[in-house]
């Protein structure tokens, strides 16, 4: 068996740490402003709407709609070569923010834009869990 080449990992910083901590606990979260309740993703040091620094990561339903998707046939990293062709989706969460992720458990011919999707969690290792999405019923 070949040794797996490491895939790119998130660069954890003070702003996004909460998102990745929650993901490890199988929770999908977005950043919420403590002053005006705006929800947004990716995280930001201040609220893009009111500029407050009172930002926290709050769990969301994990439900959303499939807004678009693509299938990669080119590996921009060697570590993704074995996955080709792989699916990337754009999800609009019920709560508003957009997320890019992977679509799992579906064949390209069966994908319909506008379909409901829900988050699933793929454990990479003890440090990293990636939220992904599947078509919901």
């Amino acid at each position: 068996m070949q040794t797996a080449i490491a895939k790119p990992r998130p660069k954890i910083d003070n702003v996004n740490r909460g998102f990745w901590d929650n993901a490890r606990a199988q929770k999908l979260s977005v950043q919420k402003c403590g002053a005006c309740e705006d929800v947004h993703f990716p995280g930001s040091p201040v609220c893009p709407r009111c500029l407050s620094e009172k930002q926290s990561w709050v769990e969301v339903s994990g439900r959303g709609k499939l807004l678009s998707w693509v299938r990669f046939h080119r590996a921009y990293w060697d570590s993704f070569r074995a996955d080709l062709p792989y699916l990337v989706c754009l999800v609009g969460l019920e709560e508003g923010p957009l997320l890019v992720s992977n679509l799992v458990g579906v064949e390209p011919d069966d994908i319909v834009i506008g379909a409901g999707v829900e988050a699933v969690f793929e454990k990479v290792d003890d440090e990293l869990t990636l939220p992904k999405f599947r078509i919901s019923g």
Partner: protein
Amino acid sequence: MNEFHKLKDRIAIVGVGNTPYGNFPDTDDYGLGARAFRNAVEDCGIEKDKVDGLLVCRVPHYARMGEIIGLNPRWTIQMPPHGRMSGMAIIEAAAALDAGLCDYAALIYANIGRSRRVNYGGEESPGVWDPWGFTSPGAAHAMMFQRHRALYGTTTRQLAEVSVAFRHHACLNPAAVMKQPITIDDHEAARPITEPLRLLDYCLINDGAVCIIMTTKERARDLKKKPVMISGIGAREAFTTGSIGNFDLNFWHDEMQDVAAQAYGMAGVGPSDVDALMCYDNFSPTVLFSLEGLGFCKQGEAGSFVEGGTLKLGGKLPTNTDGGHLSNSYMQGWALNVEAVRQIRGECEDRQVPNAQVVQYCGATPCSRSIIYTPG
């Protein structure tokens, strides 16, 4: 009237120059930039040392560029190596000239992406979505086109019209990199890169440089060639929805509508007056989005609008007559502005649009811009 409308027909492009386009590992950005500058100086017949404004884009260091071409300007700007900068740069230079910050501005763009093997994705451009394998501007455009297909029924055969028309133009342009004609079927059979986009939807990556020399209307009279006037400009960014690079859920439609209202309003023309369009085409779908945003057709109708060779010379809206980024050269909008100037001057030979009086540049990007050129 908006305050910026007073710039109408005040500033001219007086000189244009470029290098050959291809793979030039034996030189560098500065060597290419200097060659384009020399060609632009020759084109307009200016005394080189009169140039007192310098804008560089994708050139590593402005001061080194100035040293190489022997200039001590009184106005200098360096712009980042992003594709969307050409329209922004020309507008900034126009404002600086109008304000008297300089009398003659040289704008130099150089790209050595080919000989440096630039990939535009992966480790070169780390981003938020890398852990999911989402990278590269082309993938963002694929994501938009997939949505356009679903919302409006646009087909890949319609998308192919863009690549086929621009390749046809490249075949008429002796300077273009790509010289083999292609068909819609060739487009459909090309290797997929990020589906639904295929190889022929992607711009080239090649080396080259472009220089544009600008001045005021009054000073332009003393130079060699008839000036080409900047008659309309429009600008709008989309930063607040920018978490996904090079992507907009609504195809930059609102921004381009705003850009169109500004540019057409200032120039006093509309889409039906445009003799040729120079449309930023890093990936073919953005041409469809631009046509809709500028109002050449309604939103969702660009697929049928381009069918049957609309964008070809002799068609309803000749677009990217030099072959664009898809087939001429990846000069990130700069060569398209040069082509606009040459069309108005009547210098385009086999690819000349007869009597081109209104030529429009546009780029639908997170920094959308348009410039309308007319004869001086």
